[in-house]
């Protein structure tokens, strides 16, 4: 029966649906975070405009959780999933289960809607069935959230929040180190996203250190690998050197880990060891000094929203230098045949 096959399909693609939800959530975070941060400039002013900006920012920040749940469900069940997703997301927000609740709720409501759509009824009933589906799936998942998973999730979020607000220096460094390992590991893949998702979840609790750590480590892999090609050009192919020349500035401006991929691709293991080490160093420093970032933006705009720009610069620079030196050391003791790689690149 196609039921089993479809279920498998939709679950195998959970990652895709989750990413879709996050993709639609990013702009709302940007708007909310940016306006909220801008309004901080007017803390000492009485002008009405700052209050309005602050309020708009707050709307954005309170809406990103439902937005994500809605579009996870939308990605799974198409249009019939959208409304249930929003309702479940708002509910998750209100019952204090927050980001995690919305993630779970969005996936569940999307899945149930999707499965209900598969039911085939006699023609007479089929058209009205379409109107019933969202109501049924919303009811099931909402009740489930409120009565079964809601309370434990809320306690979990609460204890997370307490844990972070009492984070010691060494605890912060350990947190930064772990996030660094994840962030440096796969250049914007699932591990990096786990760490940035976690940072966003923490921001939902008004804890900004994880986001600060994420912000600090995100540019370390590309900058580190670019710097490495400048330090010892002998160890790199012409394509890699050309790419590094044009992309270091881009990584500074736009701030993406993904920019590192072409530089790491040909020599994945050594590059990954180096970027993990670099991010570990950078993340630990950022965590130790409790670096906070108030807005989930990347690149240059970040610079204005750190609580301490010197910590940011310090952690990035030390991470970048670690990465560059380590990758060159590893490459110099290996026998990577540059000429052969260049030759194969030309023959393509």
């Amino acid at each position, binding site marked *: 029966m196609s039921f089993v096959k479809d279920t498998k399909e939709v679950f195998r693609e959970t990652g895709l649906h989750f990413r879709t939800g996050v993709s639609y959530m*990013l*702009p709302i975070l940007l708007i909310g975070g940016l306006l909220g941060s801008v309004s901080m400039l007017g803390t000492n002013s009485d002008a009405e405009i700052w209050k309005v900006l602050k309020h708009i920012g707050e709307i954005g920040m309170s809406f990103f959780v439902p937005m994500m749940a809605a579009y996870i469900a939308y990605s799974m069940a198409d249009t019939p999933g959208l409304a249930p997703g929003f309702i479940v997301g708002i509910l998750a927000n209100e019952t204090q289960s927050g980001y995690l609740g919305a993630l779970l709720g969005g996936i569940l409501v999307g899945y149930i809607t999707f499965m209900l759509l598969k039911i085939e009824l006699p023609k007479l009933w089929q058209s009205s069935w379409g109107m019933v589906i969202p109501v049924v799936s919303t009811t099931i998942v909402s009740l489930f959230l409120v009565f079964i998973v809601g309370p434990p999730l809320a306690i979990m979020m609460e204890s997370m929040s307490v844990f972070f607000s009492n984070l010691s220096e060494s605890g912060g460094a350990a947190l930064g180190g772990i996030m660094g390992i994840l962030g440096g590991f796969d250049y914007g893949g699932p591990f990096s996203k786990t760490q940035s998702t976690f940072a966003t979840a923490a921001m939902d609790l008004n804890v900004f250190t994880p986001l600060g750590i994420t912000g600090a480590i995100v540019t370390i892999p590309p900058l580190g690998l670019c710097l490495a090609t400048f330090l010892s050009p002998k160890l790199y192919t012409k394509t890699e050197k050309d790419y590094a020349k044009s992309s270091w500035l881009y990584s500074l401006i736009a701030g993406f880990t993904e920019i590192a991929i072409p530089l790491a691709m040909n020599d994945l293991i050594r590059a990954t060891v180096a970027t993990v080490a670099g991010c570990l160093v950078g993340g630990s420093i950022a965590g130790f000094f409790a670096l906070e970032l108030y807005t989930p933006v990347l690149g240059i705009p970040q610079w204005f929203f750190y609580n301490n720009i010197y910590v940011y610069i310090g952690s990035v620079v030390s991470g970048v230098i670690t990465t560059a030196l380590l990758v060159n050391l590893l490459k110099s003791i290996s026998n990577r045949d540059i000429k052969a790689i260049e030759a194969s690149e030309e023959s393509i």
Partner: protein
Amino acid sequence: MKIALITSCMAGIAHSKMAATALKKEAEKRGHQMSIEEQGGHKVPVKLKPEEIEEADIIIIAKAVTISGKDRFKNKPTLDVSVNKAVRKPKEIMDKAEELYNNIENK
């Protein structure tokens, strides 16, 4: 042959662009024409024109997030791949695309 490519990634800034560049380069090397649409959270969408879709022999979708407007390609032979694979192995994907195209032609 003519190819219409749709790429998508989470933020719409890095992966979608890289996949599009890699596939386009490979396609041009093999003498195919390619029109591109990139999608993602922060991206200003440049939609494929209806006639570009109409003219295309096959559609390649390289996605990391669900693409919007999937209905447009309903009746077209479609190759569905992940955006990561498109960045890393554009050759493999173009091989598959050519195979798909040949299968249709031979029918």
